[in-house]
């Protein structure tokens, strides 16, 4: 293990993470998906017009072009996205419990903060934790990695920097993310 730890893998993903804001809200994060669109949570992209802060610090106006509130996903188009390096989606099903994962987002407004943790699994949330049944039964990337408000819509990536999920919720302290495979298929199905 080196002193740089997750820095290298995180810097690879960071170039594909944006900050999204609506009005005066603290906002959330978004992931530059292959195809030049930002994927985020529906609960972040709550309006059609949305302010996008790109990784180089420039601020542009984006437009919410797709929302799936049931799966808490949305897509945002904005100028300049095509020039950004998209993230590499990964398959959460291939990640083993205990593998390192990291999240990138803007918890409490802190830009591009990295938190490191370990992967649990992908699937329904265990019963008894107090999540409404329809949400519990969906497939979630579950990881012991610290998230806070502002991480929503940001990536959870494996040790190789592949994005395996889009952070959506914190339940009983656990990070829950929509699996990258579902993001890909839902967005592909919705794409105009």
């Amino acid at each position, binding site marked *: 293990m080196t*002193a740089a730890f997750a*820095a290298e893998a995180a810097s690879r993903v960071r170039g594909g993470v944006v900050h999204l804001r609506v009005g005066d809200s603290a906002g959330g994060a978004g992931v530059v998906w292959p195809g030049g669109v930002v994927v985020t949570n529906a609960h972040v992209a709550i309006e059609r017009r949305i302010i996008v802060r790109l990784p180089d610090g420039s601020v542009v106006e984006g437009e919410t072009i797709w929302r799936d509130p049931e799966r808490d996903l949305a897509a945002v188009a904005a100028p300049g996205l095509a020039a950004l390096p998209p993230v590499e989606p990964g398959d959460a099903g291939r990640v083993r*419990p205990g593998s*390192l994962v990291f999240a990138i987002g803007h918890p409490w407004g802190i830009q591009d903060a990295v938190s490191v943790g370990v992967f*649990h*699994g992908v699937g329904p949330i265990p019963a*008894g934790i107090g999540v409404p049944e329809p949400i519990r039964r969906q497939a979630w990337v579950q990881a*012991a990695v610290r998230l806070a408000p502002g991480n929503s819509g940001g990536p959870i990536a494996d*040790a190789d920097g592949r994005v395996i999920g889009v952070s959506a919720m914190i339940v009983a302290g656990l990070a829950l993310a929509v699996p990258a495979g579902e993001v890909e298929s839902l967005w592909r199905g919705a794409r105009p």
Partner: protein
Amino acid sequence: MSAPSGSLASLSEQLADAVARAAESVVAVHARPRLPSSGVHWRDGVVVTTEATVKRLDGITVTLPDGARIDATLIGRDPGTDLALLRIPTGHLPVARSGDPGTLRPGHLVLALARLGDDGPRVALGTVSATGGPWRCWKGGEIDRRLQSDVTLYPGFGGGPLVDVDGRVHGVNSGGLSRPFATTVTAATVDRVAGELLERGYVARGWLGIAMHPVRFDPGARERLGLSRDAGLVVLSVEPDAPAGRAGVLVGDVVFAIDGQPVESPEQVVDLLGGGAVGRVLALDLVRGGARTRADVTVGERPRRAG
């Protein structure tokens, strides 16, 4: 300084290997409503979990790593160390591979494992925060080593093992004893408590049957009595038909040494009553009516509360 490509990935692989190895002996324990807790297959046919998460005495089941759910019976419980023991049929699972908690130092990476159902194991990663020698936890049990870490014990993680990066189990994580840091009941204590629970179904604790409070001798009395220190413990009450009373200890006696060692706090006396003290004879040096005397007390077994 840049990381060689893949070093993070190889660390990640090592952690996942450690989890895969240790998780073979981690079960889900269904002994309370709603969320299960975790358990470690400590000896063949014996699962250790946390006492506080065992809310029923019958109808306990465990989920094995292969997803099978089988019946378990409660062998015994020790609230003092927050451990409980369950029996399952032998030959189902590998026994947890124990590590030596003495090799863990603050800063070492550790994993907390859990199992919550028929899906895969659950894991949290952290570092060892504090280590040390024997201590008494707030629930009263003696633990042979201090082992605290900053891993997050998520709901259901109580009773699961603390595992090092090689997959060795250093003890059982207790949610109840953890605050603010995750506290692990270390392997030697789990062994000791498991042995006692298997033998008699509970952990015997030593008992004198007296209540005491610290006092100080004035310099004149200390000199006259030839005491090396000015501190002692005054006996406030003596329980009827208890070891101290049978040895002749009276209310008002001031105990200043036990087995030749000065005592000045009740906690020191409690420390003398743990781990196998029952049946031992303690020599109490006392001051009674302005003169030194001695009482030899045979440590009894503390009566257990009903239930």
